[in-house]
């Protein structure tokens, strides 16, 4: 022990002597250069100040940070799509922290970490992966048992095309109008996919509009439902859906994939992954893959997508009059889409008899926004008749809305690319 202490003591002395020698050298150099240490320290502090967020902040940064905080508040306090709004809200804050440009920090700076993560959004990589997860978690049996409800999913797509028309009238180019119109599809991944192809500069605003209106579906839809559907029709009870065999469930994704992608090949990345995910689920032999797709993978991609979409709203890119127009058009498109589904459901009832009649409330679920709009139809149904459960029926137009909006995106791509 004594030997060890002696050895360490000698080493420590040598080290201290060396330090003292070098230290005196540095001090000698410092005093030789004129002794303006304080001046240099102030210059260093000034440079540091130039890098801080306080120096680079503008009013618009604070506005956007407030928007991000509001999103987080909505998600936590009112439970509005928290899985989307918390990552997006945090992303908005991250994207709007002011910084000195040119050091590979910001999302739009080549080579930055955020830029690499944003690549998945910019090139439309994330949306198909999300669709894979959606396919692996969706049960299409209500749709298979009553295929005629699929038409409600097509009717609600009127929102997309009405907004496309409205955006063109407001002076947007056809490509930009197509990207804005897809907000009416109430499908975040589809909106990001299409806007990344047609109008990349507007993608942040479009994605934020799509996701925020999706979160607000429980607020937007009920008044329109009550306005357009008389109380008597809101109380219609639908007959329970028939049981669906396993063979039908397995055949659905294969037939759906073949038919929809032959009609609209541009939507192949979305529809291909959606039906592939569903096949993983329904085949019964790939449970591990389906499990990963609907849990781990979709969660990872949602986190990356949410944060990067949020961060893409840097104030200098986002706070423009175009963004305001996009938000206004997005709200209108949601309303038109909801109204389209509801009205079409009422029209369908004119041709249906007896217990085949459908409750028009489920028409609103055609806007996709899975599963929120189906849940809204269920809640509205329960308000009018506490024993009328519409959720199972509403899921049919709801999932067909996903297919419909992806087909519509493919059609817009084919027309406008």
């Amino acid at each position, binding site marked *: 022990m004594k030997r060890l202490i002696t050895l360490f003591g000698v080493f420590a002395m040598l080290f201290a002597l060396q330090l003292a020698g070098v230290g005196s050298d540095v001090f000698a150099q410092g005093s030789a250069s004129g002794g303006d240490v304080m001046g240099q320290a102030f210059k260093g502090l000034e440079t540091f100040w130039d890098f801080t967020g306080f120096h680079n902040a503008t009013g618009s940064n604070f506005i956007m940070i407030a928007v991000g905080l509001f999103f987080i508040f909505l998600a936590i306090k009112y439970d509005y799509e928290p899985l989307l709004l918390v990552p997006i809200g945090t992303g908005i804050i991250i994207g709007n922290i002011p910084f000195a440009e040119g050091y590979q920090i910001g999302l739009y700076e080549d080579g930055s970490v955020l830029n690499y993560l944003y690549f998945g959004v910019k090139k439309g990589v994330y949306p198909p992966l999300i669709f894979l997860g959606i396919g692996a978690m969706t049960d299409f049996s209500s749709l298979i048992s009553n295929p005629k409800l*699929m038409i409600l999913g097509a009717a609600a797509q009127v929102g997309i095309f009405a907004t496309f028309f409205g955006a063109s009238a*407001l002076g947007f180019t056809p490509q930009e109008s197509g990207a804005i119109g897809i907000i009416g599809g109430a499908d975040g991944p589809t909106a990001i996919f299409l806007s990344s192809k047609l109008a990349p500069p507007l993608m942040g605003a479009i994605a934020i509009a799509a996701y925020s209106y999706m979160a607000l579906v429980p607020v937007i839809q009920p008044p329109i439902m009550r306005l357009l559907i008389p109380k008597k029709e809101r109380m219609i009870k639908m007959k329970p859906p028939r049981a669906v065999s396993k063979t039908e469930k397995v055949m659905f994704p294969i037939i759906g994939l073949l038919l929809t992608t032959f009609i609209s090949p541009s939507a192949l990345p979305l529809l291909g992954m959606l039906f592939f995910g569903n096949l993983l689920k329904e085949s019964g032999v790939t449970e591990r893959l389906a499990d990963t797709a609907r849990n781990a993978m979709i969660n990872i991609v949602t986190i990356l997508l949410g944060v990067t979409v949020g961060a893409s709203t840097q104030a200098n890119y986002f706070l423009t009059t175009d963004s305001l127009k996009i938000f206004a058009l997005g709200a209108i498109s949601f309303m038109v889409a909801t109204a389209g589904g509801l009205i079409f459901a009422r029209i369908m009832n004119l041709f249906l008899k007896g217990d085949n009649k459908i409750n028009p409330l489920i028409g609103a679920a055609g806007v996709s926004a899975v599963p929120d709009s189906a849940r809204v139809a269920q809640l509205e149904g329960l308000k009018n008749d506490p024993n009328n459960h519409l959720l199972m029926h509403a899921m049919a137009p709801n999932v067909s809305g996903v297919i419909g909006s992806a087909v519509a995106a493919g059609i817009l791509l084919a027309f406008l690319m």
Partner: protein
Amino acid sequence: MNHINFLVVDSQVWIITTLGWLIVFVALIFLIIVFNQVPKLLGLDVKKLIAKKEKVAEQGARGSEIELTGETNAAIAMALYMYFNELHDEESNVITIKKVTRNYSPWSSKVYGFNNVNFPR
């Protein structure tokens, strides 16, 4: 900003709007037709099956006419849900070791275990 005049919108926009929506309808109607035919192709006469099931259900119901309210159904559903969620085949692998304290007993005494006879002194 341009003036909003819906009549002066590019003719291309009109075409895409109407054609686009129509194609979405056609695509989904096509799917409806196919999926209406699938059960027939699979040899499943759905109506017959349903009629059969209804008959069996009627016969079963005749014996015991039970009318269940929504609340009862909800309670049953909740019970089933809780039952199936309580079932778990994966254990946490945390083993709790209970410390067993015992009073002195000559049977466990160390002293009697030693052979003291030839211990070197």
